Every structure is written in structure tokens, then in C-alpha cells.
């Protein structure tokens, strides 16, 4: 008998993609897709059940379909669509929804495996933190609110569940900033601005993970572990390497406007109140101090190697967005023109490897 997988949060594009991908796995028998609103995209051959995970009804769904694997993807920072709800609704779905879902799982003896999508936001971003977070690093300053706090609470409930149901394999995947050609996260929104406001005097280190890799690692975590690997526990998921915010701006070809930190905070809260953008304080902290996580556990224990590096992910994202005001190609061409005007440029060929000066 094959497996029955229940996936929450399928009305989002990432959830929808995961559901379609999951059906191609040979040992997956049925996929039950759950969300409170019907998705706009098709879900392949998955059975869509319209259920709100904040209501106890979810327990019935679990029992009725004899679900043995639960993939909880309905932990998100932004509301789905522009119209529906604000921060309060998001928090309720994240926290109350997870509590209900875990309560239902606890009562469902068939459940053998639980995968939870979390975020590296749980580490916060502070100048006094170590440069690289491992899964065991305690955050110096716990996130005070917003999505990061939700994620911390969600992880707390998941830990409680793992204690009460030791027979269930629990995997918590902490994703770095998810980007891809069709990403619609607050960070993707930020990178779509024509001019990027940055915090004066700070150049944060950022890490990205590609949507394709997110789907693949969720597949790895929701299946039985391959030989020599272990897919229960907490794992940081991020592409290799690091990009500075200044590098991302130059690669996008967008000018940056440094703004003093107090002004940024003020501007952010004003814009949030007016409702122009949902740019939260934790996003501002990320763009001030940056965050880098260690992915050794992902490689060695989980046995997953992402296809895209951080730079590769960003490139894929940038290609989908079109050029900015200062396309890097044009700037490079301008420099080349100047170099060609140099006397002796023909003899010298300046782009051969120059010996380093000192």
C-alpha cells in the first residue's frame, strides 16, 4: 500500500507546485491538498479538500483519508492575495492553525511523518550574533514580533508534538529567503523596486534558496530516508555562498539610496500603516544586519545538495525580472569603451589576468 500525504497551504504557488511534484513520486498513493480557499492553479490529480486548519475539522480529514504523512506548508509571512486579511489573520493561520493541525495529528494513529516548513527568521538578526548560525545556535535576541515570532512559536509546538508522539518522524526545515522566477515574497517585492533603499553604513550578507530546491528538499524530507541519511530533525536549507546586498543591487542593475537607520524604521512603519507595503521590522533587521546559516547538516545528515547556489538563485530571479535602471551589461560596456580608448589597449589586452598589486 502506498502512502497518503496531506499537504496544507496548497492555495499558494509553492504549495501547488509541491503537490504536483509529489504525485510523480512512485510510492505516493494519494495526495490530499488542504487549504481554506480553493487554489487558482491546478493541482494535478490531487484531491482538494477545502478545510481551514484553524478548525478541528482537520482531524476528521486526517482520519477519513488515513493520512500517514503530513507536510505543513501553511506557515507564511504574508497574507495570500491582497484582499484577504492582514497580519492578524496570518498570525492566526500560522499559530492557531499549527496548534490545531498538530492536535489532530496527535489523535491520528496513522500519522508516521511530519514535515514543517519553517524559516531562518527564527534566528533573528542582530549585530551581536555569530556570523554563521548552526541549527543549535540560540538566538541572541528573540524575534519580538511578526512572522519570525510566529515561526518560533510554531517550532515550539512542533517540538512539543515530537515529545508526545516519539513514533512520528518530525522534520523542521528552516528555509533561507526563498527566491525564484515566480517568487512573491516581501524580499522579492523589495528587489522589484526601481531604486533600492538601503540602510546607511550596513551591507548585510544574504542567502537565498531556489524554489526548485525547496520543492526537492520537501520531497526528500517527506519520503523514507535514503541509506545513510536521516531526515528527521531540524535543518537549515540555503544555497551555497553569500551575496551582499550591494552585490545584489549591482547585479540587478538598480541604484541604491542609503537611508539612516532611524529614518528607515520610521518610513517602514509609516508605509505599513498606510498599507502601501507589508515590509515588517524583521525585514528591515534582515536588510541591516543580514543572516547566514550553516548548511552542513543539510548536506551530511539530510543528504541533500541544492542545485542552485545563492548567486545562481539570484541570477535566475534577476533574469525573470528584467533589467533595472543601470543594467550591469551597459556599465561593463561603458568601462570596456574607456579601456579601449586607452593608448596601447590593443597591445595590452587589459582583461587578461592582471598581476595583483601587493
Amino acid at each position, binding site marked *: 500500500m502506498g502512502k497518503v500525504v496531506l499537504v496544507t497551504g496548497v492555495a499558494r504557488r509553492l504549495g501547488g507546485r509541491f503537490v504536483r511534484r509529489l504525485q510523480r513520486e512512485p510510492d505516493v498513493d494519494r495526495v490530499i491538498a488542504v487549504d481554506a480557499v480553493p487554489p487558482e492553479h491546478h493541482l494535478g490529480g490531487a484531491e482538494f479538500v477545502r478545510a481551514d486548519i484553524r478548525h478541528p475539522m482537520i482531524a476528521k480529514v486526517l482520519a477519513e483519508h488515513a493520512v500517514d504523512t503530513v507536510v505543513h506548508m501553511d506557515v507564511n509571512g504574508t497574507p495570500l492575495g491582497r484582499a484577504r486579511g492582514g497580519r492578524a489573520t496570518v498570525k492566526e493561520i500560522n499559530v492557531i492553525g499549527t496548534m490545531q493541525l498538530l492536535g489532530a495529528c496527535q489523535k491520528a494513529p496513522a500519522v508516521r511523518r511530519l514535515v514543517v516548513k519553517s524559516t531562518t527568521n527564527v534566528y533573528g538578526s542582530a549585530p*551581536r550574533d555569530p*556570523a554563521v548560525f548552526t541549527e543549535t545556535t540560540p538566538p541572541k535576541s528573540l524575534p519580538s514580533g511578526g512572522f519570525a515570532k510566529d515561526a518560533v512559536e510554531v517550532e515550539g509546538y512542533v517540538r512539543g508534538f515530537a515529545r508526545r508522539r516519539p513514533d512520528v518522524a518530525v522534520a523542521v526545515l528552516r528555509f533561507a529567503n526563498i527566491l525564484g522566477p515566480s517568487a512573491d515574497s516581501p524580499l522579492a517585492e523589495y528587489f522589484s523596486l526601481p531604486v533600492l533603499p538601503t540602510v546607511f553604513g550596513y551591507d548585510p550578507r544574504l542567502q537565498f534558496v531556489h524554489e526548485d530546491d525547496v520543492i526537492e528538499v520537501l520531497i526528500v524530507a517527506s519520503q523514507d530516508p535514503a541509506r545513510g541519511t536521516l531526515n528527521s530533525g531540524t535543518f537549515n536549507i540555503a544555497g551555497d555562498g*553569500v551575496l551582499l546586498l*550591494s552585490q545584489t*543591487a*549591482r547585479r540587478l542593475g538598480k541604484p541604491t539610496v542609503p537611508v539612516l537607520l532611524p529614518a528607515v524604521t520610521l518610513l517602514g512603519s509609516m508605509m505599513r500603516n498606510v498599507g502601501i507595503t507589508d515590509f515588517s521590522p524583521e525585514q528591515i533587521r534582515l536588510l541591516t544586519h543580514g543572516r547566514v546559516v550553516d548548511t552542513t547538516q543539510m548536506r551530511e545528515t539530510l543528504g541533500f545538495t541544492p542545485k542552485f547556489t545563492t548567486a545562481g538563485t539570484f541570477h535566475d530571479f534577476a533574469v525573470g525580472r528584467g533589467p533595472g535602471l543601470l543594467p550591469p551589461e551597459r556599465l561593463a560596456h561603458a568601462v570596456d569603451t574607456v579601456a579601449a580608448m*586607452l593608448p596601447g589597449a*590593443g597591445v595590452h589586452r587589459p582583461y587578461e589576468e592582471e598581476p595583483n598589486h601587493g
Partner: protein
Amino acid sequence: MADAKVIPLDEDTRSRRGTARPGGRAAGGRRKNAPAGQPELTAVPAEEHSEGTAPRRRGLRRATARQEEGAESASGAGRGDGGDTAAEPAQEEAAHAAHAAPSPGSLPLPVGMLTDALGGAADRLLGGSWERRVAGGLSFLRRRITGDYEVDEFGYDEELTDQVLMSLLRPLFDNYFRIEVKGVGNIPSQGGALVVCNHSGTLPWDALMTQVAVHDHHPSGRHLRLLAADLVFVLPLINELARKAGHTLACAEDAQLLLGNGEVVGVMPEGFKGLGKPFSERYKLQRFGRGGFVSTALRTGVPIVPCSIVGAEEIYPMVGNAKTLARLLGLPYFPVTPTFPWLGLLGMVPLPTKWTIQFGEPIPTDHYPPEAADDPMLVFNLTDQVRETIQHTLYKLLVQRRSVFF
């Protein structure tokens, strides 16, 4: 005209630091193909059109001709004694001068005149290889403005550090503090090492200078990765530059990760206690924290290299500490020196003391068992050993020192 010939030579040898330049020698070979008469012929019309630039250009040509002569004789001498290092720069420079000369003729007339005139000025200012430098600078600029460079997970930008940050600090190192570096070979050429230094001087110039010392003087050109106080990462601009220069927060996690990656890590265990101590207590080492650096070295099995810095104590003689003001500003201390804050920013100019940086014999830690890092007695003993070594070396260097400023 004599300065046009002498200054570049001098400048070039200094900037080169005896590193091998295979490219330069190859170019030197190419020089022989360039016909000597060509520049004269092609450049003549341009000279007739412009009266203003003519004398300068003539001067330039005379200078290049002389340089070529000089190079001829120098390279001859070099061949004679089998590779005299002084001959190399001269040869290379002459090669560039030879490249420069024929090309203006191929450019449109006004552009040719302009670049030629600028070239003459640049030649005199920067030395004969200005073109190569400009080309190198342009390709550097090209990489920077398109974001096509790499940083490591700590935000260390090796290219920027090598090409810009170190070049900014080098004049201070060479000409202002005239730092003498001893025993830099005690840092292993491969694998991790923990360099432990004394800390002094109100502002952490000593840490930056140690970084230059390792970068410029170590035979394998190793990079020192400094561990900095958390205050550094709170301040805007400073934190950005510190990360790009390869510094990171002084915590066990970061130190262990860096040492595990085989980097040379620099640490000042005295911290603010050493940096902000009054002038009267100069060269008295403060407490070495809880010995966290020793535990980290034991855990990673890397050698500890004690490092003593003499001269940094006197750059800002701190005679007072405005504690209330410091607390108000959130700083660990607020220095009062004979010049600061009375002269404002001018008071922040350090005194030009003469420095010595001595790297001591490495203390191996790889023969201890893994659980040694959790043995407080051993950690304390090793901490004391490192501290004593630095203190004794400081006394020795102070006895040898002729004066604070020379």
C-alpha cells in the same frame, strides 16, 4: 627630466616587494619587436598642431628614450649577474613605455593628443606603468560595478581588502609608524593558527597594523582574520568595512569555524581593558578574559602564536577617562588625551611612534586530548603561558627600543 626617470623606478621597486612577475618579463621580451624609430615618425604631425603640449611631449619622449637606454644597460647587467632584482622593474617599465609610444599615432588626432598629454602627466605621477595600472583599475572597477565578485560567509571581500583597504593602511604602516616586523615566519604557511596579541592605543590601530604585517610580510601571503568586539558590528560604516576586511565577532562559534577552515585568526584577549587603559599603565598586560581563545585553539588543535606589539601604547597617551560621557554615548570609555577632545578631529591624529611587531614561537596544542578544552586548569595554565610570553617579549623589546619615536 631627471625626476621623470628616477621617481618611477623608485616607486616601482617599492610597490613590488620582490614578488615574481612573469608577465613583466614576457612583456620585456616583446619590447624588442617594437621598432625604435616609429614613435618619432607617427607623432610628428600632432606636435605641429599644438604648441602647448609640444614641449611636454618632447620631454616625455626624451624620458622614454633615456629609460630605454637605462633598461638596456640594466638588463645587460642583470643578465651578467644572473637575475638582479633591480633590473626587473626597469625592464618592465621600459617595455610599457615602448608600448605606449607607438599607439597614439593610431588614434584620432585630438584624442591622441589628449591621451598623450595626460599620459605624460600620469607617467610622471604614477611611474612608467600607469597604463597597466589604469587597465588593472578599470577591470577592477568593471567587476565592482557589476557586482561580479565573491565574499565568504563572514562577508570577507578578499579582492577589496587586497586592492583597496590594505593599500590605504600601507602608508600608515610603512611611513608613519615605520613598523618593524619580526618572526612573521612563526605563523605556519598552511592550516589554522591563532595569533594572540596585546591590545593598546585607545583606537584599535594595532589590530589593523598586525593585519597589514601578516598580509605584506608573511612569505605565503596569509590573511589575518581578526576577531572584533561587538561594538564594531553595531556602528554603521565601521561594521561594513570590518566585515569586508575579514573581521568577525569575537565569539567561540566564529573563531572555531574560521580555524576549522584553516584560517589564521587574530585575537586580542585583553579587549577594551587593554585598549582603554590609562597611559600610566602602558605595557602592563591586563587580564586575558576567561581564556576562551585557548579552549577554541584546543578544540581545533591549532598552534597559538603569541604576538607582542610595541609602540601602539604611545599613539594616544590617554591621561583621563570621561566615564559619564562614555556611559552616555554607550562606549566602554571616553579617552582624554593631551590633544583629544580639545583639538577636535585634529586630536584624533595618532602620534608617529616607531613600532615593532614580534611574532613569537608557536605553542602547539594538537598533542592534547580532545577533552582538554574542558579542563579549566589546563586552559588557565596555557592562558598564563601565552600571557607571560607576550609580557616578557614586550619587556625585551622595550629594552632594545632606542626611543619612542625613532
